[in-house]
Each structure stands twice: as C-alpha cells, then as structure tokens.
C-alpha cells in the first residue's frame, strides 16, 4: 500500500522543525551560563521541551498529516503523549551533556546519540500510536539508516550551536537540526510498509485523536514556538544594548 505526500505540508514540516530547533538551540546555548541548580535545570528542560515537543513532535505530526493514505487514521492519545515525552526526555539529556563543562568531542557523541535517539524514539513511538485498518512493518536496514541520519545530523547541529559563534551558530545549527529531524522522519517513513488488515471496530478508536485535533495542537505549538523565538531574540537584543562596559 502506498500513500502520497502533500508537498506543501512536507515543506511546512521542515519549516516547523527549523523554527522549533532555532527556539530550542537559542535556549540551549544559555545553559552553560545558567547557575548550577534550579536555574540550569530549568534552562535544560525549557530547551529540551522546545526541541522534543516543538521541533520533533510537531514536525512529525505535520509530516503524518502530509502523508495521505486511502484509509481512516487516528492516533492513540496515550502513546502519542508518551512519544512526546520520549523526545523531550532524550533531548533534555543530550542538551544537558552538551551544555555542562567544557564542550568537546567527548561530549558531542553521547549528546548527539541522545538527541538522535530522541528524534527516532519519538518518531517510532508516534508511528506505533497510529490506529488504522493496516499494520506497519519496517525494513530494518532503512530503519537503521534513519537513526544514523538523526544521530549524525544532531551531532553537527550541536557542534555548530555550542562550539561556534555568530550567524552559523544561530541559524546554521537550526537548519541542520531541521535536516536531522526531517531526514530521520522521511527515511523512517520509507522504511515503513503497510499491510491491510480487517477494519478495526469503533472501540479501537475510542479515546483517540483525529487529524483535526492534531492540526489544532500543532498550530498552537507552532505559534507558541514562534512567539517564544521572538521573545528570546528581543530580550537578548535589549540586554545587548543595555550592557554597560
């Protein structure tokens, strides 16, 4: 069974992943300056939530809406929430590793692995949340490639965010992290094969989320990310102007 992609939504999914990554990485690069304790914990959680919940989760479900299949699809609410938590937790750990102490190659790899696995873990948990008259199975080789893409691109994005300074740090890292998220997702989708099963009864869909609710959630998250990104940028510009010598 083959589905078709809506290219407008595919483009939108990349833009949302870049916007989420920009917001998350702008929060993340302030982690090293945060005082140890509550302030640092909050900085890590804020960045991890923007990355896991914004860049990865929102992108995933826009991309799922972009994948048009000739059958009704809904999402198990509990597994969908768990998928967001996987993304947030993994990204928070990855960013905590990258943002603590002197940033070096020794830290880049474990941080990138956590981030990459967060992207992949969220995606495959999100796929497991799908309720439809078909079952999904995967080509293991392509699945592995999707995880490797996520880890490598995450490493590059973290390197740019924590090691560099200037425009490459601000925008390059977000663009590359968007590649990590989207590259992993669409490769993971290419690994998925669908086989028709008998139509599930209505009880299966009880307590599930349909596409309209998802669309609304994604819209709210995207607007939130945009507002957050603008607020951070504005606050930093103001602070920069006020900084006395």
């Amino acid at each position, binding site marked *: 069974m083959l589905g078709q992609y809506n290219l407008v939504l595919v483009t939108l999914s990349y833009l949302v992943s870049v916007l989420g990554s920009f917001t998350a990485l702008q929060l993340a*690069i302030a982690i*090293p*300056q945060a005082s140890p304790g509550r302030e640092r914990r909050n900085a890590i959680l804020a960045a991890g939530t923007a990355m896991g919940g914004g860049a990865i989760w929102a992108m995933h479900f826009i991309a799922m809406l972009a994948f048009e299949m000739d059958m009704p699809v809904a999402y198990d609410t509990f597994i969908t929430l768990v998928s967001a938590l996987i993304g947030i937790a993994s990204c928070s750990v990855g960013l905590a590793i990258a943002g603590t*102490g002197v*940033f070096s190659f020794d830290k880049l790899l474990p941080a990138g692995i956590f981030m990459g696995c967060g992207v992949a873990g969220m995606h495959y948990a999100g796929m497991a949340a799908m309720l439809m008259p078909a079952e999904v199975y995967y080509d293991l080789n392509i699945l592995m490639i999707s995880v490797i893409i996520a880890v490598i691109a995450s490493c590059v994005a973290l390197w740019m965010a924590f090691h*560099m300074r200037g425009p490459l740090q601000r925008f390059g890292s977000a663009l590359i992290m968007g590649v990590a998220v989207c590259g992993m997702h669409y490769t993971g989708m290419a690994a998925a094969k669908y086989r028709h099963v008998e139509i599930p009864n209505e009880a299966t869909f009880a307590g599930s989320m349909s596409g309209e609710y998802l669309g609304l959630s994604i819209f709210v998250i995207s607007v939130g990310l945009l507002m957050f990104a603008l607020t951070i940028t504005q606050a930093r510009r103001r602070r920069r102007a006020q*900084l*006395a010598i």
Partner: protein
Amino acid sequence: MEVEFTVLSDRREGLLRELGNLIIHSGFSLVRQRMSTIESGVQLWLRVSGREDRLLELEERLGSHPLVLSFESEHQVTDGPAAPVAPAAKPVMPKRPPQGVGRSLQGGRGAGPAVGQIEAELPGLAQDYPRIFPRLLSMQGKLPEGQKSPSMEFAGRRVGAWVYKRDYALGGKLDLSGALKHIALPAMRNLLSTDLKENSLRVKNNPLCMPGSHCRNGEFFCGFLRGLLDESGVGGQVTVREIYCRSDGAEDCVFEIVN
C-alpha cells in the same frame, strides 16, 4: 581599605550569592549590603573590606560578571576595621563623577593604571566600537607617561570582557584553541585584519604601533585578548604577550597566547 559598590543588575535571584562568592574569591569580605528594586532593574549596594592591591582584580571581576550590567565604586582608604560605617538604613550611594573611580589606586602608585581616566573613556569606547582607534590614540596621548602601558592594558581588558559578554557569551565553554578560533579571532577581526596561526594572532596595520616608532604599544591588544579569554572561562589564567611588533620593524604585530 573599605570600598562601596553600587551594582545594577537585571536579575534579583542569586545576585547577592553570586557577588558574595566573587567578593570572597577576590580576597575581600562583605561588610554590609542592601538590595533594592529601581526602575532600570535591581540595585545592590555593597560595602566590602580587603587589601588595596587586590581592588583592581575585584573591579575587573565585578565589571565582567554576567549578572552585572554596570557598577560604580567609591573607595575609602582606611587603616582597618575602625572605618566609619554608614547607618544600614541609609546607605552611602556613589555620588562621585566617573573620574573619581579608583582614585585610591592612582595615588602614590605611578606604575599602576590610571583607572579613573580609563573608566571615563570606556563608555565612549563602547559607543564607538568597533571603530575605537581614534579614541584610543587620543586617550593614549592624554595618559601620564609612567602609566601608559598598564592603562592601555587595563582598557583592553575592560573592552575585551565587555565584547565577550556582548557578542560571544552564548554558547558552550571552549578550550583555548576553540576560544582562539571562535572568539578571539572574530573579535580581533572586528577591529583589524587578523590571522590565526596555532596560538598566535598576527595583526596587520596596527595603528597603535607605527613603523619605526619603537613604541611596542601592544598592551591594549594583550589586555583585550586577556579580557576576552578570561571571560570565556578558558581554564587557568591566560598569558598574552606581543612577540613581534610593527614598531620594531616586524611586518605585523604578533601576539602569542599561552594558557
């Protein structure tokens, strides 16, 4: 001696703890403090006591602390703990013009920096940045002969620390080679054409060192690089020295940075 500082910050949380630690690490002890909220942020008044020879270090640390937006200090040279203490309910706030900052350091120490004179020039340097050389040259001309070198080094450190906080503070902590490549080099390139080779920065056409003048006026850049790198958290104290100078006939000024 006892010194009073009035610090302006945009954050109340952790401010006293952070600055208290900074004061202790600089060899001073906190005598009294008072925090108040004003229109432009949080104002923390501090009275500290300690040795005069460590005051410059304390002022530099204070001036480059991430929580400190600006500060003013009032020095009171005393013989010991019998210093006059202002009542707690009515703290002495600084009223002196910028020229008065650090006047205790200037008195009787010809080899030290002219802190007051430099402090008065710093806002202008910040305003002109990165086109600071006309003001630097004019400032250098006005400095007392015996205080030129330490004063230019002090100015460089203050500008370097400020540039770091303004443009390079966000991001991971880097090792020396990373800090040279991603912080020191772009910061220097903002001022003059500069190349990096291993641990040396080669500065072209340094206007502070005219060929044939034998002036070896690299102190500003030594201070600038130290200010940048110390703030970036490069482990230990960074040593910067000018190993070749354009004024001595070398093609370019070369600064070596060692951790």
